[in-house]
């Protein structure tokens, strides 16, 4: 059974840049998928389409059988949480309040605009913070935390949504190697224990190989590789990271030699 299905999706930005040139793929429920590809390949755009942060120019995106559109956007987003490279927390609010924003969509605006939440929401928040190991930081301001801790708050916010899917857009690109390991381990554990579908954009080939069930390789708006992480050969990596118009790419050779 697939939770996410993407049908002949294209995306052209108003400035004329064609980010996606026809993507067809299905992502199975409870799987851990990593999208690899050079900067500008369209990884981010593809991920953002799945949460409705971008709308496709052509084709359609469905989450659990429901096609994303203007009318059901907020309803679908409840089930599709997002984790960002820059964490995107509200810096002035406390860690716990940031996690509680994950509950907003479940509640009417009336209580929530006064920052009033039900006990049930507080329980979910406590649980989510315990999962990411930040219970003692609950009432610190979000911007007082280190990068790795902020990303864990981002994941707790996603967990508080009780989602079917968590999308992570380069979640470790701003973190040191140890924090990166921690964050990827956390996402993997969430996938295994809660059966939440995880889709992650990455630049680190080694992390992708170690954590993913499936790897999708993209280059200039197209899928150029799709397979289990064990199938990711040096040849496949070469296709993913090749640059247009450069025949003998020294930098590519070196980068892949150490990957």
């Amino acid at each position, binding site marked *: 059974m697939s939770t996410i299905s993407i049908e002949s999706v294209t995306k052209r930005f108003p400035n004329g840049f064609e980010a996606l040139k026809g993507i067809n793929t299905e992502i199975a429920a409870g799987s851990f998928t990593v999208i690899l590809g050079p900067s500008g390949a369209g990884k981010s755009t593809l991920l953002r389409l799945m*949460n409705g*942060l971008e709308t496709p120019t052509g084709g359609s995106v469905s989450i659990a059988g429901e096609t994303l559109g203007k009318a059901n956007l*907020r*309803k*679908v*987003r*409840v089930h*599709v*949480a*997002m984790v*960002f490279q*820059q*964490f*995107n*927390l*509200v*810096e*002035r*609010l406390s860690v716990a*309040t940031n996690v509680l*924003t*994950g509950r*907003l*969509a479940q509640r009417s*605006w009336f209580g*929530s*605009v006064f*920052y009033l939440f039900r006990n049930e929401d507080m329980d979910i928040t406590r649980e989510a913070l315990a999962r990411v190991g930040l219970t003692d930081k609950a009432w610190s301001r979000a911007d007082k935390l280190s990068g790795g801790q902020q990303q864990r708050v*981002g994941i707790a*916010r996603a967990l508080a*949504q009780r989602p079917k899917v968590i999308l992570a857009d380069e979640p470790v690109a701003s973190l040191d190697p140890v924090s990166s390991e921690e964050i990827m381990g956390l996402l993997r554990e969430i996938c295994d224990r809660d059966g939440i579908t995880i889709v992650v954009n990455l630049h680190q080939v080694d992390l992708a190989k170690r954590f993913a069930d499936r790897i999708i390789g993209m280059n200039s708006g197209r899928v150029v590789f799709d397979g289990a992480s064990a199938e990711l050969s040096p040849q496949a990596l070469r296709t993913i990271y090749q640059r247009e118009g450069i025949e003998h790419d*020294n930098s590519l050779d*070196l980068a892949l030699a150490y990957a």
Partner: protein
Amino acid sequence: MKPTQAVPSATALPPKPRNLFPVWLATVLAVLWLIVRDLEISFETLAYGVADMGEYFSRYREPDFSNLSRYMELMGVTLATALWGTVFALVVAFFLAPLAARNFTPHPLAYRAAREALNFMRAMPDLLLALIFVAALGLGPLPGALALGVHTAGFLGKFFAESLERVDQGVYEGVAATGANFPQRVMYAGWPSILREALGYVLYILDRNVRMASVLGLVGAGGIGLALHDTLRLFDYGQSAALILVILATILIIDYASAWLRRRLG
């Protein structure tokens, strides 16, 4: 193995983009000069006038504080007028600004309507509004507060809307991606992110309203301005000087208080 890459040889840079700054500067200076000529502004008159001004100001040398308790009471009325005007502006701006911020607004039409409403309020001078409200509601501080409120709601709303538009796109998306609706986005991604700036604007508007409320007394909106108007008409320079000093002291105190408050909020 070290990478062996040929160092690219130096070639000519692409042509430098044209910089039109000198042309603009010259145009502005030319227009300024034309204005001076057209309005026949004479700097000689200014030089002669300095001596006369000096003589006039010297009449204020001996402030007369014999009525100080009454002045304080009038200053209190003026402060209350300014405070209520600011509260009114704050409430109106609080609801209009999110609609007038391009990134938060739920609909382009709401954006246009809110922007135009703010522009309209800002375009009405508070002195004129005070005249209208005094005519409609009678003398006293209420028309003054209303006039200040309407006028500065336009300012505050514009300032708030522009701050909201500068909220980091990522923070907005972080909240929007959870499925939060318009009021929730405003309350979680919007106001907390601009709290510090917003407080600065409110304090500025309060400061401005205290100064303006002192003037509004001249058109019958009560407070210390009315007293100053009367003493000036009677050529009572001693009392006028005292009134002006009371106003100055109040504005200084407010300035220090707002600086302290801003530091506290960090």
